[in-house]
């Protein structure tokens, strides 16, 4: 079996950041996971979430009937790649995909048969969604409408987050969404009844749509158990959505009760579209079909006749790793020109920029000390601002090396450091030691506990933390008691 052995170059390649869903899956029990693996679409989706090494290992083991000796497998691994190999195996065992004893290596049989079914297209479990029959009297939604719907739903949520508490009155998303935002700590009602965005909410806004979506879905999964929804049903429905075709309608008949209840929530997040609540068919939007892929989740909302080469599976080729076309130009005089008419992007920029002028297709502003300090006060970090500007930089900016002017980057960081000139910690100051030996003895004990913040041998005093105080005081009292 030709296998590309793990060479040194593979280890230097930037580590595939593990998908945020994986720790959640690893915390589930083996029975839950095995039930999940009964559905081929779930297996395929989880397969797509894993890193390249795990995927290669799974493919190697997939078509073997009996277990493979662990020694045979590790013989293919070069010494440099040993760590990567071990961590990949650990991930797979954590997910109960591989059963790893010291001697033999085999795939979980349920996972194995389901993944084989997924690849070879066998079985009729309907786990990839049952398409609705084409006897529709009304026309099904086409891709543009689905994209517009998903964009509108998603941006309503984000826009509500950005402009809450700033005197504007944006359209409110549904109650379920508001509850989810509150539970995930992105908003809270600090001052009275209205929801206000929190600092983690601000950081959330600067992430890519894919990360934002998974953040919310993970929160939804955590809440699923409290709402007495079967976690396996919820997860398998999400995975089923991620393997569906964009633009095709699917029937709601084979869905379980839990999954039908989920349809309403997913409509609010913009993941599926239904003509009306009681409709027997639904269509996934691009947000749903790109859940486990690396394609952009939302069409670039300001494509100036550019790259919208969507085919029916919704897979748009990634261009140089940016999700949307960049639109921000940052000059060395701290001026920002943002070629956008999207109110959400304007609102996000308003978080850390002082707006100057606004035109139909252009927004002009400046990075000022006040605006950046306001953002820093709201919990956004300098690195986040810089990475947001980098990610959304206009293609013209790529002529510069480095991308953003160094002066501006440094100044943003300096403004952040300005706020941290005074650091403090609570604790107790120990002084008035009778003798040097006493002082050193107690100091040694405190150092052992790692609670010393500051010491001065000349003045014979030191400062210890609040948590360590009880121990140190006990120690001193034992000494005075015995002395």
């Amino acid at each position, binding site marked *: 079996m030709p296998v590309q052995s793990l060479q040194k170059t593979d280890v230097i390649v930037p580590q595939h950041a593990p998908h945020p869903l994986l720790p959640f899956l690893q915390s589930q029990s083996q029975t839950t996971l095995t039930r999940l693996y009964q559905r081929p679409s779930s297996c395929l989706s989880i397969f797509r979430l894993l890193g390249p090494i795990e995927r290669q290992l799974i493919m190697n083991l997939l078509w073997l009937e009996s277990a493979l000796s662990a020694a045979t497998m590790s013989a293919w691994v070069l010494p440099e790649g040993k760590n990567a190999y071990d961590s990949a195996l650990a991930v797979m065992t954590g997910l109960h995909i591989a059963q790893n004893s010291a001697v033999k290596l085999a795939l979980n049989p349920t996972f194995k048969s389901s993944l084989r079914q997924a690849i070879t297209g066998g079985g009729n479990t309907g786990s990839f969604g049952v398409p609705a029959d084409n006897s529709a009297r009304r026309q099904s939604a086409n891709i543009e409408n689905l994209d517009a719907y998903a964009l509108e739903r998603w941006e309503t949520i984000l826009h509500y987050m950005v402009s809450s508490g700033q005197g504007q009155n944006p359209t409110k998303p549904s109650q379920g969404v508001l509850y989810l935002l509150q539970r995930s700590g992105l908003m809270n009602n600090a001052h009275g009844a209205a929801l206000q965005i929190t600092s983690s909410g601000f950081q959330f806004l600067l992430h890519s749509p894919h990360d934002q979506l998974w953040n919310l879905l993970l929160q939804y999964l955590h809440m699923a158990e409290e709402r007495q929804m079967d976690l396996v049903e919820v997860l398998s429905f999400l995975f089923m959505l991620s393997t569906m075709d964009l633009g095709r309608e699917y029937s709601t008949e084979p869905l379980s009760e839990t999954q039908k209840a989920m349809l309403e929530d997913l409509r609010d997040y913009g993941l599926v579209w239904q003509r009306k609540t009681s409709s027997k068919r639904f269509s996934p939007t691009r947000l749903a079909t790109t859940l486990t892929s690396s394609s952009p989740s939302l069409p670039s909302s300001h494509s100036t006749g550019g790259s919208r080469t969507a085919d029916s599976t919704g897979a748009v080729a990634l261009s140089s790793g940016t999700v949307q076309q960049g639109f921000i130009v940052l000059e060395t005089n701290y001026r920002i020109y943002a070629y956008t008419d999207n109110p959400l992007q304007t609102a996000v920029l308003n978080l850390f920029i002082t707006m100057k002028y606004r035109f139909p297709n252009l927004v002009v502003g400046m990075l*000022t*000390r*006040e605006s950046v300090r306001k953002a820093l006060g709201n919990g956004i970090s300098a690195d986040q601002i810089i990475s947001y500007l980098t990610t959304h930089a206009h293609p013209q900016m790529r002529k510069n090396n480095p991308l953003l002017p160094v002066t501006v980057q440094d100044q943003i960081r300096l403004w952040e450091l*300005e706020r941290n*000139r*005074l*650091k*403090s*910690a*609570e*604790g*107790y*100051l*120990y*002084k*008035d*030691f*009778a003798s040097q030996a*006493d002082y050193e003895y107690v100091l040694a004990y405190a150092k052992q506990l790692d609670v010393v*913040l*500051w010491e*001065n041998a000349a003045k014979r005093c030191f*400062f*210890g933390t609040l948590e360590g*105080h009880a121990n*140190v*005081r006990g120690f*001193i009292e034992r000494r*005075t008691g015995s*002395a």
Partner: protein
Amino acid sequence: MNRRPIVGTYSCSDSAVKQILLTMNEKDPFVIEDLDDYHLVIKADEEYRVRRELEAELEKNTYSLETN
């Protein structure tokens, strides 16, 4: 052996900020002990007020080019 540990907030800053704090202290005492060039011990409940006043003081030294 009299060993009564003093409770307080330990603050670490650069020496310029420390001098500003000592000046503020003359108007409204909050410093319990002066440790060395960079550290002070101040009363725990005064910490918030002290930070606000310090920020206000430092703002006086900044200059911004906002014409409109």
